[in-house]
């Protein structure tokens, strides 16, 4: 049943222009960043280079792709719940003999499937360098994994805010607000007691950074999975409470 719902979301996503516009626009931006990184790198002498090309590309290209994913995920997720509340099509699922958790997981799987091509775009750009430069494939794989995990978390946050409102615009803005908070919360570290870096730990970019350096740490994996699960649980709770509202 989870796959049935995910399949419908995937099909719905593929036939509407939103995903294709997102992918097209992202590719244009990423290609520009890619060109800039390679151009800068090739302009430097061997002794002036501080990092390898792989690392330069990972930090810039994948880092930028994460920002794009942060903008894209709420847009994709809003269709799944918020727009369905508005159009009344959620009543179909509400009256169907299925558990709410299957609905949440199905929608999440659909979001993940639609975000995956976006997460593969940086790696796809890198294939242009295959044969001409030595790339650290392990680093690229780690960066892609990190980007994908971050996108899953953004998707879960997007789904949660989409479950809050039947106004898709409001849902997207709420998600942007939440995601921006998660991006800058690490900066509050300076305000708190030195050594206690809870705020630093909360920020997603700190965790993605390690993936982009090529280090897959259990703590970072746990961070992304924990928050994805947390927001999916909140979505479930919200959908259950919606019947009471």
């Amino acid at each position, binding site marked *: 049943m989870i796959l049935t719902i995910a399949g419908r979301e995937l*099909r719905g996503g593929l036939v509407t222009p939103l995903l294709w516009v997102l992918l097209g626009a992202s590719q244009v931006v990423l290609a520009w960043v890619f060109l800039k990184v390679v151009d800068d790198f090739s302009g430097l002498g061997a002794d002036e280079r501080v990092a390898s090309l792989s690392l330069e590309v990972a930090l810039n290209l994948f880092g930028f792709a994460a920002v794009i994913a942060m903008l894209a995920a709420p847009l994709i997720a809003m269709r799944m719940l918020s727009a369905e509340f508005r159009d*009344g099509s959620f009543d179909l*699922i509400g009256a169907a003999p299925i558990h709410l958790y299957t609905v949440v997981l199905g929608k999440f799987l659909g979001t993940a499937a639609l975000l995956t091509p976006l997460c593969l775009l940086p790696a796809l750009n890198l294939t242009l360098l295959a044969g001409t430069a030595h790339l650290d494939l392990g680093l690229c794989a780690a960066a892609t994994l990190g980007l994908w995990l971050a996108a899953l978390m953004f998707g879960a946050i997007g789904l949660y805010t989409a479950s809050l409102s039947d106004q898709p615009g409001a849902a997207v803005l709420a998600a942007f607000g939440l995601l921006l908070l998660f991006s800058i919360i690490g900066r509050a570290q300076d305000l708190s007691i030195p050594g206690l870096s809870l705020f630093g730990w909360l920020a997603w970019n700190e965790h993605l950074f390690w993936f982009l350096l090529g280090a897959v740490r259990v703590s970072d994996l746990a961070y992304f999975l924990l928050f994805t699960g947390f927001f999916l649980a909140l979505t479930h709770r919200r959908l259950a409470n919606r019947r009471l509202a």
Partner: protein
Amino acid sequence: METLVRVTDLTRRFGPHTALAGLNLTLARGEVLGLLGPNGAGKTTCLRLLSGNLAPSSGQVEIAGIDLARNPVAAKRLLGYLPERPPLYQDLRLDEYLQFCARLHRVPRAKTADAVAEAKHRCGLDGLGRRPIAKLSKGFRQRLGIAQAILHRPPLLILDEPTEGLDPVQVREVRNLVRELSRDSGVIFSSHILPEVQAVCNRVAILHRGRLLRGDHLAAHQSALIWRLRLSAPAHCASLAALACVAAATSLPDERIRVVLKPDAGPEELTRQLVAAGLGLQELTPERSDLERVFFDLIGAEERT
């Protein structure tokens, strides 16, 4: 008769506003229950509660003995629901949508194609399978909403204003469909069109301001005593009042005459006497149906208090 739905003391509040207060209802297999009421009476709230889309503030809904709140999945297997707005996905094609609905309602894969074809046929959607839902007209969307509700042959069918937006031919077809479906399932449907309810339902529940005013069986073939008629030649009321079966006759501004029959007389008797008197009967209509009278009496009484 087997009880399909039992609603006990169902109440639903939205903040300070009580949309439904202490509703008690039962529905047996083979019955068609019409939910009548003016706008804002609580019809849609009632149906949303029965479909499990809304949780009650208090009270209980049982479908075939299964508590909808405690065991929603098992209870929802037994129902087909058409909400006020047909729950359609604009981005799918008609066949894709119905196949998705079949999967949601756990129709076995081997039977999906047959179920989809039959639902489409019953709702007059043959040959439209490849059409994107976004391009369907309002009437077709409504039909697709009905098709989605009957697809898995549920024992209980909940239809919220099913004939909304349909043309007269289709309205008649939906009525026939509801009658046909009621042979082996129970149907609850809401409407604010009185003749429709009278034509299809064998029971009526009249809701007003969230309270059930009446939930009786419709009295079948109880003839009304007030009739309006039009004669070919202008005739004086006195010549009508002189007929044996007429208690009183008054002329109306639109050249019709309003006739009150004596309690034991029926329209057959009136026609016979009119023809015998050579008055040239052109038109004969009951002034208000029983249901209409009951409805307005109840609502009116309610509004005076």
